[in-house]
């Protein structure tokens, strides 16, 4: 089976579905952003789209669902869509099950959460208590105190905690899934110093490496981290000789094309990146690599949206576009693909020749263009 990386037009929100070579499905964030009451809302109906895919695959569960952090644009609709083990209220026909929930430590430790963020926390805490169906991304010691206070045996849960610099257990390049996940963040350096949880900067950043036909294709999933965290990731990776763990062929842009994920200043026409971030974006990109901006369309210069403090920022997009084109790549904005007037979900195939945009002619059966069905 050919692995696919799927993206969805959700405005400024993240969801990526990884269909692995062995049929397993991993969902990175879940943000059902569309307003059903608004006919003009061009954002994709994520629950329906994902359910259709589930039906096609004949399954009612994801092998893993990773909530990189508990901001609304990464977990909206979590309680409506998923079967949650922690409360019968969230169990019932049509709900999609989660075999393994991946969350950062912040999603467990943070207080005063509301709505879906609270449900993510409740589900994660429940599963951690049960000692199964969970991976918490953290330096293990960080959770120790909380677990002791909650009366949860730390030692027997330790294997459920994935530290930065490690691979997520259960996924290997040599296995039938042909993918591995290297965890960059949340990392110890931040966690040692942090007393206050910063949700964005303590979110999960991973490099997914796929292999097909001996060729690796690397997808960097950078959540919503800012340039300072990216720079810290770069520094830590270089210090440990893990530069190749920051190489990428596909980049899910952090924070919806915000300039803050590039550098301190927005700039007038083009954001100037922090030197470490520049190294990540320019030196670590592989030939022909693509950037995916999970965001609203890039504002036109001088437009109202261009003045907005919220991303996407035209100046950041200008930087990404320039360097992407220079490297024979493509800069794809989820709400602009294939057109601003009618954005649609899209997918990349993982092939022995690197990734390729999955394209199909509409209204034609797959076999129609094969050879003549009869010989005589």
């Amino acid at each position, binding site marked *: 089976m050919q692995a696919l990386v799927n993206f969805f037009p959700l405005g400024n929100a993240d969801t990526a579905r990884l269909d692995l070579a062995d049929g397993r499905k991993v969902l990175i964030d879940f943000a059902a952003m569309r307003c059903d009451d608004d006919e003009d809302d061009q954002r994709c109906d994520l629950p329906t789209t994902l359910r259709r895919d589930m039906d096609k695959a004949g399954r009612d569960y994801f092998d893993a669902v990773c909530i990189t952090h508990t901001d609304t644009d990464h977990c909206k609709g979590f309680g409506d869509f998923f079967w949650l083990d922690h409360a019968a209220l969230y169990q019932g026909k049509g709900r999609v099950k989660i075999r393994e929930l991946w969350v950062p430590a912040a999603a467990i430790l943070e207080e005063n959460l509301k709505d879906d963020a609270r449900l993510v926390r409740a589900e994660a805490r429940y599963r951690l208590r049960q000692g199964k169906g969970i991976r918490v991304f953290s330096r293990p010691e960080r959770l120790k105190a909380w677990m002791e206070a909650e009366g949860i045996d730390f030692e027997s849960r330790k294997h459920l905690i994935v530290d930065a610099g490690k691979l997520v257990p259960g996924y290997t390049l040599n296995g039938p899934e042909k993918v591995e996940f290297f965890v960059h963040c949340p990392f110890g350096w931040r966690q040692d110093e942090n007393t206050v949880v910063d949700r964005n900067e303590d979110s999960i950043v991973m490099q997914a490496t796929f292999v097909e036909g001996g060729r690796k294709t690397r997808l960097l999933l950078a959540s919503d981290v800012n340039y300072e965290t990216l720079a810290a990731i770069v520094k830590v990776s270089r210090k440990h000789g893990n530069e190749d763990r920051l190489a990428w062929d596909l980049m899910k842009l952090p924070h919806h094309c915000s300039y803050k994920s590039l550098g301190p200043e927005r700039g007038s026409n083009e954001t100037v990146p922090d030197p470490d971030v520049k190294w990540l974006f320019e030196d670590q990109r592989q030939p022909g690599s693509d950037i995916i901006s999970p965001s609203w369309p890039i504002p036109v210069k001088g437009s109202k949206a261009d003045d907005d403090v919220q991303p996407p920022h035209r100046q950041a997009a200008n930087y990404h576009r320039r360097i992407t084109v220079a490297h024979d790549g493509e800069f794809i904005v989820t709400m602009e693909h294939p057109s601003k007037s009618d954005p649609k979900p899209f997918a990349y195939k993982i092939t*022995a*020749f690197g990734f390729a945009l999955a394209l*199909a002619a509409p209204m034609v059966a797959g076999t129609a263009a094969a050879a003549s069905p009869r010989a005589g």
Partner: protein
Amino acid sequence: MDVKAWLTESFDEVIEVDDLTSSAAASFARFVDRHAAELAAVVALRRGGAGELVELTFRTGRPQQSVVPIRRTERIGVRFAGGDSMPFVYVLRSDFPDTAHQNLTAEGSPRAICIDDRSWAEARLTWTPAELVQRILAWFRRAAEGALHDARQPVDPLMFGTGYNIIMSRALIDNVNTQDLVAVPDDTGTLMRVIPLSQLQGRTLALPLTVAAYRVPPAQMVRLSFAPGNLGSLADLLAARGIDLFADLRTRLAEWLNDARTNAARINSCLAVVVEMPIISPDGIQQGTDFRAFVTAEKVGDIAVALGIAHKVESKDQGGAAGFVTALTAGAVDEAALIAMAVLPVEVHATFDRDLATRLAGRAIPDARKAVIVGGGAIGAHVAPCLTREGRFRWTVIDDDVLLPHNLARHVGFGGDVTRRKSELLAGALASILDDEDSVATAITAQVGVEGQQNDDVNAALDGADIIVDASASLLAERFLSDHYSKARRFSIFFSPAGDAAVLLAEPIDRSVTLRDLEAQYLRHVVREEGMRRFGPIDYACS
């Protein structure tokens, strides 16, 4: 090449979708607009002498590291020529790479990708704009992944697109200087069979054709990208492959002119330059050889004039049996005149000879071993032609029987063959399958194992054979063949009595087990095994 200039020249008028006269072009353009926005966008619609063109940008789905330099988005032009013909897909980029499965286009045209190797007559039955889009997409995907060599497709069809085809034997191509040839057209005028003038029978419309044949050595082969349009560019094409066309023609034509009386027909024929060239895939591997022909409208004599070695004579008083005389002193080559002489690229189909049959059967080495088949009846008349169609064997057919009406139920013979000797009937059928210089099949009308006049011929045939096939359905014949002193390996083939199964008994190469042994083993199986009972003529179960 200048794509813009080509577009302007070939499709000078930019039109609206409602102005398209080709319904296929209009439905394709509308389909792309309405349903295929993820893949393509119509950029312009054009019309001109070459038909109507839908110009569009097309997402190729090229992977990150494409095997050939295809872009993520290519500009393409789909041409819908007047009349009912296959849409033609040009890639509107002068530096689009040379790949397998491109159509050969005229000089000055952009490259055209070959998205469908079916005939239009067949393809049009299921043609839809969606399928066209899918085929273009599939071509780009396969090209980018280096997978254009689909096992289902010919390696390099290199279709010229002129629609003209000639059929001629390799033997004629190899001996073009020894015979006068004519091309006999079929009723459409597009398919011509080239035969020696001497074989022309009755009053048949035929085009006198003189063939000049060249063979491009593999080392000199450069993949053909564009079809030459005139004698000048044909000479350039051959020069790039180590052949000096004009120098060679000057020599050949001068010889013919020196004996103009003998060569009159040839001098007044059209010239077909036949080139046998290795087929080279883009990765440089030779995939066989192929013939291309380039036919002029001008006579050989006119070409000789342009080559500076002849003069045209206005009347017979001026001499020259062929209407042309040799120039006393050879003049310069009139290149302008040669460039003005158009050549029509024509597909050449070699006749079905042993080499072609062998290749089509998926084998590399021709099998011209001597085979004797004893029995030209129902089974022999099917097995021997099938083997012959695979390019196998030089046959001797031995049978003493004649074809009777009831034989037509299983035999390959027709009503008109009734009363003919089966040996001659089958040998004739075999000989007509393969176009081979050597005799493919001979007949001996005799019954093996019985004293008769043909015994010596039978013995000689069996003795000289590499393979002996018993298709007689006669135990007497089979035992005779098994015991014969010939060293050839024996086979026996027959139907079960009910005609619902066929049996093959095959000796090993060293004949350590003979047909007699095999017969005994076979009968043992028939007697002892329940499932084999129906193969036996006697119900042994009662014993």
